[in-house]
């Protein structure tokens, strides 16, 4: 046991040495070896210290079952934190651990350096522990059932946050409106850049000061609000303080996970790219080489029907490196690309891109052919390949990554027809919502908002308004 530990420590030091040599930049690491059920618990919760909820228990059960039946295996889990926590499965062989450590270091480098993660709370392990603590205190105060059913409702919408902005907390409606108006004004002001013909505008009489008064915005919110969770938390009239507190805590957790959802392909590709290169630098016995090859193959194995992010991400990174190492004559002339800059380029990509731009900018025609990618859809009872045009494949892949792969919802109206009812709008971009799920989710929104809620979306090319008033569902074509 002790020997194993020492050997692992030696290996980690060596791997770090190599990683440093490649220029990977990671946080101090804490490797924790744990049994399968603990790894799967963390996998199901997304974080070791997360709050308790039956849905995590359900996930845990499912993942653990797959492990018990040998259907899937998590070898590692890495947490975006400083110091960075990495959990290794007890019973991994040394060579497995070598691959995993290299993989994990690259993940950590990604967390630390990718722009999307720059606002990440690196103390989330502790924050989530505090959240869990607070929720269990609320359970004591208000009863387990009450807290649980409230969390059920919050989890139904908790993905609909706005990761772009840091939202001011504790605004009342009036101050929120004032703020929005100010933003509006600033925006208008900003767009009016001084031009050569500005003086033409001043030929007329100067407008009187009274005319300049901003027209009062009556819409609430003035502009569609992407952060549904924040909006409800701020402006619902039925929530108690503890409920608003839970909502704001769960929103923070979602914001923490958000960059990971936005960079899944890149992050996994980056880690796979580096574990291959790092392990190649190690002195391996022939047995170890075979074992490494097997494990590596299983990680980056292509899958049918869905894309293996590890594989696609890896291939794109390798392709970028190749294209910037050996640019074509045209690329050199037109874009001024200097040969031999491949490594430099991929480090730049890992810093500034997310899955959206990564795919849009770097998935090339050649690569879609090499990877044999295709678009498939359901035709009658059959799933068929319907398109192999590379642009369409690329665009489809981009589309599937918009908003982390989730439907884009906004608060359209928080005071519908002056009744205080809530209207959510699905920003339809060609993909319909699952109506069964939608009809079962609306009651949760209703529970949070305390009044009738509506959802506008598109079904079969027609605009439809779905309504739930606390008792019944209605739908009406617009």
């Amino acid at each position: 046991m002790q020997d194993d530990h020492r050997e692992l420590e030696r290996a980690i030091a060596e791997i770090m040495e190599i990683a440093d040599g490649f220029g990977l930049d990671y946080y101090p690491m804490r490797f924790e070896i744990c049994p399968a059920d603990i790894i799967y618990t963390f996998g199901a919760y997304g974080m070791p210290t997360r709050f308790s909820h039956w849905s995590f228990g359900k996930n845990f059960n499912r993942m653990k079952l797959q492990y018990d039946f040998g259907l899937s295996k998590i070898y590692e889990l890495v947490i975006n934190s400083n110091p960075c926590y990495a959990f290794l499965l007890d019973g991994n062989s040394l060579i497995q651990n070598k691959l995993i450590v290299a993989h994990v270091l690259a993940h950590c480098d990604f967390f630390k350096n990718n722009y999307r993660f720059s606002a990440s709370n690196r103390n989330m392990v502790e924050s989530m522990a505090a959240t869990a603590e607070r929720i269990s205190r609320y359970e004591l105060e208000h009863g387990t059932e009450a807290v649980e059913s409230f969390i059920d409702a919050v989890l139904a919408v908790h993905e609909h946050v706005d990761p772009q902005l840091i939202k001011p907390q504790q605004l009342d409606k009036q101050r929120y409106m004032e703020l929005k108006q100010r933003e509006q004004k600033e925006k208008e002001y900003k767009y009016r850049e001084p031009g050569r013909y500005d003086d033409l505008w001043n030929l007329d009489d100067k407008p009187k000061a009274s005319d300049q008064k901003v027209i009062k915005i009556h819409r609430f919110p003035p502009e569609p609000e992407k952060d549904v969770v924040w909006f409800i938390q701020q402006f619902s009239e039925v929530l108690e303080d503890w409920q608003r507190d839970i909502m704001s805590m769960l929103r923070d957790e979602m914001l923490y996970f958000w960059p990971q959802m936005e960079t899944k392909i890149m992050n996994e590709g980056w880690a796979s790219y580096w574990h291959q290169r790092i392990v190649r630098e190690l002195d391996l016995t022939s047995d170890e080489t075979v074992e490494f090859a097997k494990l590596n193959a299983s990680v980056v194995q292509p899958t049918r029907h869905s894309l293996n992010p590890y594989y696609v991400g890896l291939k794109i990174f390798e392709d970028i490196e190749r294209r910037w190492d050996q640019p074509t004559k045209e690329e050199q002339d037109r874009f001024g690309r200097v040969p031999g800059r491949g490594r430099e380029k991929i480090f730049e990509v890992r810093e500034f891109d997310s899955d959206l731009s990564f795919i849009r900018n770097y998935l090339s025609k050649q690569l879609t052919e090499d990877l044999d990618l295709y678009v498939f859809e359901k035709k009658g009872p059959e799933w068929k390949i319907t398109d192999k045009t590379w642009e369409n494949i690329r665009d489809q892949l981009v589309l599937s990554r918009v908003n982390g792969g989730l439907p884009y919802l906004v608060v359209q109206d928080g005071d519908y027809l002056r009744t205080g009812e809530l209207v959510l709008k699905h920003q339809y971009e060609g993909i319909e919502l699952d109506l069964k799920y939608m009809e079962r989710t609306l009651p949760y929104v209703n529970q949070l908002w305390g009044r009738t809620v509506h959802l506008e979306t598109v079904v079969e090319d027609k605009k439809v308004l779905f309504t739930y008033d606390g008792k019944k569902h209605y739908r009406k074509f617009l």
Partner: protein
Amino acid sequence: MYSPDQHLFVVSQEDWSLHRKGYQDQRRHQQKVKEVIKQNLPDLVTEENIIMSDGKQIIKVPIRSLDEYRFIYNYQKQKHVGQGDGDSQVGDVLGKDPTPQPGKGEKAGNQPGHDYIEAEVDIEELEEMLFQDMELPHLKQKDRDEIETQSIRFNDVRKTGMMSNIDKKRTILENLRRNATNGNPGIHGISPDDLRYKTWEDIIVPRSNAVIIAMMDTSGSMGSFEKYCARSFFFWMTRFLRRQYEKVEIVFIAHHTEAKEVNEQEFFTRGESGGTICSSAYAKALEIIDSRYPPSSYNIYPFHFSDGDNLTSDNERCVKLIDELLKRSNIFGYGEVNQYNRSSTLMAAYRYIKKEQFMYYVIKEKGEVYQALRSFFHKREGSAV
């Protein structure tokens, strides 16, 4: 050459055995599944997976309302990007209605699950819930309830017994106690007084028999819905009686204008055209009881399912025969499956039978099979068991 302190890292392996959160929440989830099952009992009672389960112990049943509902895209109406082996062509069929699984080994927790809501249920657990507040009305003590020895259990300690059954722990305790009272504590000098023996007791289980006389109208007017309701009812009734009696037999009598004893398969699938004379079934039941199931040793439960569409002139005879049957039976149950709420000739007559042991229930929809079961077997105030 490399020493760990050049780099900032720690390897640790803590004792995680107290970290039970996953299991705790898993239990909470199972508990919720159970609650949902309980709420859905009326639906589950007629669930085909169960009724047609053929003796399987664990069955899968669809459970509504225990998914994590979110706003998600309709997978079926979406285009997806996939990956081939190198030679994929437009028009290739990938499969019929696959249920694509998310990639393996990935980190979960931030991805919504899109899985089917099928819960595995142990039939016995379901029975437990279902029969929790049911009981058999009008139980009768039968003459031939013989005393039977089934097994033995050790449940007593005595001062005499066989050496091979000596209870060492208690013997030493006695010795300790005696030595202590004598002012000389410790284990020493075990005397015959200290010896304790385990003794056993016979477990006596009274033998009891029950027979269900399942009668069903198989005339043309009984459709598949009516038969299915009857089938569900008999399924649960048999199970319920099996919990009460050591041995439960079931006799199937199908009738239209005449009655015939049939096997189970025929009973539920048989369909005949023509009218209905219910008394024929009752007469057949009497005949079978008198020849094979003496009431002195059997608890007899005749149950009759019909759509109520009986030949009017036969009603009087039916009532008379029910009287006869009641003399021999514990209870007589009449279930009428009448989904369109037609006026039923049979009920017109049965409504006036005022006997405690005669019970009826009109089933209008599937969910009411559960109500029928409860109506026949609910716990009664002050009833003797």
